[in-house]
């Protein structure tokens, strides 16, 4: 796979520019509940950036803010010169931001192929009449994007389930398909919410390898939430620790591991 990509790198075409992600003092309230409290973070291009913390700490909410699904009451999230707090969610893929959800949110009645093809949606330009007639321009465009999707399918080693209906697949495979759908956007920043949850060790290793591969080859920035400390310490460049909506630490894995407040709040029980 890696050797093939040297000759054929479809992801290098049509890519929006890579930017640092700058989260500037965002606060998010749900009624009286403060889910995020003045969070500031900087994620550099090409980093694997992990967010950890106990359940209910606000990790998913933070990704939802970056994704423009939640609107923080205060603060800004800059990606390039765009404030993500002010754009509608469907604009984000065009800015290069992709997302895979914690509870798989695939299009369960569609095939794997169609789920990934939906990731190419924003690049498709044919008009309705060309779609209704299909043959000619419409078909050419579909095939062009099919090539990209097949590249992703090879990368994630899901060739054999291409035509399978997503809803019928095992959990681990669905997680992989969801990563594939996000990659099909050809993003510069990918947000992964617990991509390895519920997987066995072998599946986790595969997933970790894919994440490292795409960062290496595609140069994608990865922000991920993960509970498996072994994996997080292994693959992350930076780790941010959340507790009750507050950022209690951020730094390299070894710094976070030895931070007394982190040990107290979170790692203490599971990782000492």
């Amino acid at each position: 796979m890696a050797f093939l990509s040297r000759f054929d790198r479809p992801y290098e075409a049509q890519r929006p520019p890579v930017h640092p992600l700058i989260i500037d003092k965002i606060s998010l309230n749900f009624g009286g509940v403060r889910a995020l409290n003045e969070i500031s973070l900087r994620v550099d291009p090409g980093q694997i950036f992990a967010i950890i913390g106990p359940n209910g700490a606000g990790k998913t909410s933070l990704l939802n803010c970056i994704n423009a699904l939640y609107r923080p009451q205060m603060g800004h999230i800059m990606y390039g010169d765009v404030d993500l707090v002010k754009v509608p969610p469907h604009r984000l893929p065009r800015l290069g931001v992709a997302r895979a959800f914690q509870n798989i949110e695939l299009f369960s009645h569609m095939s794997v192929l169609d789920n990934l093809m939906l990731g190419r949606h924003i690049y498709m330009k044919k008009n309705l009449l060309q779609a209704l007639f299909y043959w000619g321009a419409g078909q050419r465009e579909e095939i062009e994007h099919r090539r990209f999707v097949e590249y992703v399918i090879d990368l994630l080693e899901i060739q054999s389930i291409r035509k399978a209906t997503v809803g019928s697949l095992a959990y681990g495979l669905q997680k992989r398909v969801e990563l594939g759908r996000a990659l099909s956007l050809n993003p510069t920043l990918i947000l992964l919410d617990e991509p390895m949850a519920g997987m066995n060790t072998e599946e986790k290793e595969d997933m970790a390898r894919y994440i490292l591969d795409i960062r290496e080859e595609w140069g994608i920035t990865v922000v991920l939430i993960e509970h498996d400390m072994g994996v997080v310490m292994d693959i992350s460049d930076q780790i941010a620790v959340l507790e009750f909506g507050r950022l209690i630490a951020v730094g390299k894995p070894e710094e976070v591991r030895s931070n007394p407040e982190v040990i107290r709040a979170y790692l203490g029980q599971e990782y000492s």
Partner: protein
Amino acid sequence: MATQSGIYHQTYESDMQLRPTTAQRVRMVLVIAFVLVLPLLVSQNEVRIVNKVMIAAIGAIGLNILVGYTGQISLGQGAFLAVGAYGCGLLMVYFQVPWGLALMAGALITAVVGGLFGLPSLRLKGLYLAVATLAAQQIVEWIIIRWDPIDGTIDGKATDALRIPSNFLFGNSAWRLNDNEYAFYYFVFVVLAIVVIGSVNLFRTHYGRAFIAIRDQDIAAEVMGVNLFYYKVLAFAVSSFLVGLAGGLTTIHSTAISFERFTIDVSIAYLAMIIVGGLGSISGAIYGAIFIEILPEILRSIGQALVQNRLVSDQVFVTVLPFVQQGTFGLLIILMLIVEPEGIRKLWSNIKDYFRLWPFSY
């Protein structure tokens, strides 16, 4: 589910073909041959029923695009049929627009009206949206009943019906579409074929995928770059275009139209078609249209046969039979859904799978 093996695709083009095998091509040719000779084999009245089925199939495909594929429930089918029917009819009656043009214009008007009534879909989902589309149904019905220019006059007396001028296929008076069932048959078949091909194509492209994605997971679709507002309204417009086309075809196929053909009962009958036939399927919409349109006719002819053979008296026929027919109709729908909740389309593919593996079925 069984899949056909032994077919390997060398190119994406061939993998994305609709009818990849020779057997399927042969079947296509047989179907077309059957369609061409069918009118020669059956009575004018039977052709009339087939024509009604084909119009209903176009309307049901339209509704299925909205409800089955995009997941937006609509109770406004009757209203949208009416907009197409009256749009087409009024253009012909008051502006002498040629029927072909009036038909297309009626469908386009319905697309716009459908798109407008689709606007609430951004805020409303499921049953709430259904209630909003019910408003469309009520408003349109009210307008048709109350607005005078729509009530035509026949022999100087005001009526509830709009009288439709003659429409001739090929400009030839032998081919009067209003009541020459054979002429209308060939015409509506071509229209249905175009609608089927266009709809199938639609779901091979990013438009159709966006519709299905909205149905399956709207938030995820949005996060993948699908503009929900645009695509929901587009689904309403595309769906309504076909429904309006079906309405216009009803007009072309009539000497007069009136509001009774476009009531809430009609909306519900169409929902029954796509549910019984198979939600989110083009062929399902066609199967459903056949089932819902033909079953009452069969029940009626069974009733007539009973009377002719003096198994029941005329008196019983007149008073009881309609209830028996309605009851049987409802019962068969329920039975159908118990046997295969995913509809006739699924039932049919189960049967095909069974025989593909026969005699080694398990």
